[in-house]
């Protein structure tokens, strides 16, 4: 077993205690906060008998350790529990909502990475000149406005006034989604060879992802610019320029590669934030993702969805960190995994 594989397995194994801790913490917090989710689910006219029946049906009349034990043992059987409010299986909900948010977040991160890197590189190459100032202004503009406001304005301009993009949803409502493989419409339509649906799903995805990407654009641009400036001052760059390597090669191949390690760190951090913060964009564009599910479940103190979401997010955050660590090694061969 090489060092990289060993490192990877250790990191994956560390996920287990992390998820156990996370589940205990979330379970305890959600159960001890005040509130009567049963009363809420039973409806405003519910009699005490109706509430008691609901409490019993969901096992909420049992002690907390018993409830936790049943929850965890259910997880091993693939049973993520049921929403108290909608009575749907949490596993079904997560299966429906998670790919939508993942697709939106991946697209947003991609846009933010590309735009942020381009703006950052230009800002560094033209330090304290017009492109640098322009880059700063653009980034400041988009990061300063609230995301929900930008979402509504973009929807109004590009959807309603110009009619270039749809107002909402992942696909036209009368177009059936591609047969499920990953649950991400762009990926599934491509894998199925359905270019028409692919085109339609990208068209639906573009504006929501663009708006969401603004949240990460500033930090990626600024970190790229700063590291680019530092790298441009390094001896190896001076040497490459001195021996007459074309500027495209110096920047595109050597400088960017060193700069991108720091950018990658920011991207991995932003990925989590974007995913967790997608709720407003999802709401405005009716993007049926996890964002709204999280908010509604939390507001209703709907125990099982809260648990399921927490575990999924724990897995996603950890996976992103592990993948980022592995990517460091690809970008910089000097990095060793021990």
């Amino acid at each position, binding site marked *: 077993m090489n060092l990289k594989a060993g490192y990877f397995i250790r990191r994956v194994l560390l996920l287990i205690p992390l998820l156990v801790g996370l589940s205990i913490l979330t379970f305890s917090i959600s159960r001890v906060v005040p509130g009567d989710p049963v*009363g809420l689910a039973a409806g405003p*006219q519910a009699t005490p008998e109706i509430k008691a029946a609901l409490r019993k049906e969901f096992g909420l009349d049992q002690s907390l350790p018993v409830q936790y034990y049943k929850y965890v043992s259910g997880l091993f059987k693939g049973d993520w529990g049921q929403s108290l409010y909608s*009575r749907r299986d949490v596993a079904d909900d997560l299966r*429906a909502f998670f790919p939508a948010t993942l697709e939106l977040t991946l697209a947003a991160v991609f846009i933010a990475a590309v735009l942020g890197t381009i703006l950052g590189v230009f800002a560094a190459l033209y330090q304290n000149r017009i492109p640098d100032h322009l880059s700063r202004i653009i980034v400041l503009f988009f990061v300063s406005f609230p995301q929900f406001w930008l979402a509504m304005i973009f929807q109004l301009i590009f*959807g309603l006034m110009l009619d270039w993009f749809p107002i909402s949803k992942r696909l036209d409502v009368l177009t059936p989604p591609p047969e499920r493989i990953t649950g991400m419409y762009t990926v599934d339509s491509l894998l199925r060879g359905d270019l*028409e649906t692919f085109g339609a799903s990208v*068209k639906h995805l573009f504006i929501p992802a663009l708006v969401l990407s603004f949240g990460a654009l500033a930090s990626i641009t600024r970190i790229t610019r700063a590291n680019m400036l530092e790298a441009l001052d390094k001896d190896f760059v001076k040497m490459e320029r001195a021996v007459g390597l074309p500027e495209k090669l110096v920047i595109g191949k050597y400088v960017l590669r060193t700069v991108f390690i720091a950018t990658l760190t920011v991207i991995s951090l932003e990925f989590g934030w974007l995913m967790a913060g997608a709720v407003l964009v999802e709401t405005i564009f009716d993007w049926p993702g996890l964002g709204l599910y999280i908010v509604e479940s939390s507001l209703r103190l709907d125990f099982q969805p809260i648990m399921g979401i927490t575990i999924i997010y724990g897995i996603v955050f950890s996976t992103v960190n592990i993948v980022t660590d592995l990517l460091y090694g690809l970008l910089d061969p000097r990095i060793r995994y021990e």
Partner: protein
Amino acid sequence: MFYGFKATSRLVLVAIAAVIFFAAPVHASNILLYGGNQDIDNIDPATGENYSINAALRSLYDALFINRGARVEPHLVQSWEASDDSSVWTFKLKSGAVFHDGSPVTADAVVYSFNRILEISGPPSWRWAGIADANTAQALDDHTVRFTLTQPFAPFIGTLPQLFVVNPAVVEANRGDDFGQSYLKGTSAGSGPFTQGRWEIGNLYEFKAAPDYWAGWRNGSHLDGFMWIIQRDAATQKNSLLAGETHIADTIAGSDRDDVEDAAGKVVYINDGSMANTLKMNNQGKYTSDINLRKAVAHAMNYAALPAMQDIPVTVLPGPTAANFIGYVEGLDIPTYDIDKAREYLSKTPWPDGGISLDYVYVTDFPREEVPGLMLLEGLSKINITLNMVPMLWPDMVASCATPETGPDLINIYTLPGYSDPDAHLYNQYHSSQWGSFNSCSFYKNDKVDDLLSRARALPDLDARLALYADAQRQIAADQTSVWMYTEDAMIGMDECVKGYEFSPMYPITVLFQDLYMEGCN
């Protein structure tokens, strides 16, 4: 990255961009696209109940009666009779009603559906709590069903639009260990005008017109189907309606009303709603148990300013019952905004100079509940009473209404009658047996009112019942149990090509899809 794209790569990118940009939306002429503010969480008639679920249930299932407009009309029922004391109800069912699998809708199926609701004891069962048990429903023959209630209950027919009849054979085949709940929450087993099509959780739900629907279509023409498209944001609903992506938007913000009305081919229907906003005062609370203090509080609210302060059209309540709802009593002695009177009532309390503070509980980040609180805060400050604005999450508010000890001084609550009868909202809010439910958070107890409300349920004669309800409301108003604020007007935006819409106070922000049809829609 941005260096050196080859010409062919550029060409491919341009081609992909063209495919994306020119991907045209799909249109179908007779499928109605409905922008709904809420998800359809669950379509089990025994466990699901809210406005979106009810819209789905009324489309997928049939019930003995149906709410159409402000009327309750027989649907599966051909004829019926009730005993003199309103405790025994016998219904003759129409012949020819069939489930979607072709099997007949029988009296046995009605009994099965009713008992299933009672046994599961889910949210819809509150209507029959205390008046029915497992022996109540009986099939006398294939088409006759009898309900022998455990106590007389005159408004029984009003509750029956919520008794959706399930196909027992389908439920039994999928019974599992939860009486078919796991199956029915996502799959229908009914006989209604529509069947299920695409069912995308949290996104959209397709309903297809049932071929040869047994009851026929009221207006001759009918939809081939409809899509319930979840659109949570009012601005998105408006934009989709204006862009022609939907035909109906069920949540139009007050500020968007003019935009929709000004758009060619769009219309906004505005009707007096029955969703009432009431400020419950804890009648057992430390301060608010004092009737004079309650009257002082009620006189400190600027009712006339409420319509201007809210972001949607509202109508000020004239008492416990809205003017458009059955049982409304004209000329009740209801307080107006009058600080002098507020001061006068305060002087009769143990705190004649004020100096006390009351909690006002409302839903966090919900301006429609916060605004009246701020108005009251201003009024009460003039009589030296401090109002603490206490935002709470909804589950916490529900929990606080469990007992008089945990009940807040004042709490802002929305109520919607569950059926078209004064009993639907008066009994639940003002009968002391209902303490512990969210709607009865004023913890009001008056033996005379309890007696009137109990007797009114049992009388068969409507006029006699209304007289009792009027007496009860006079007493409730005299006791100033609550501050009655307003009902929200119902606004629904539509394309003018949608025909057959009729406002129903029971379902103020949605439609009866089976009565709709489209003429000249794109």
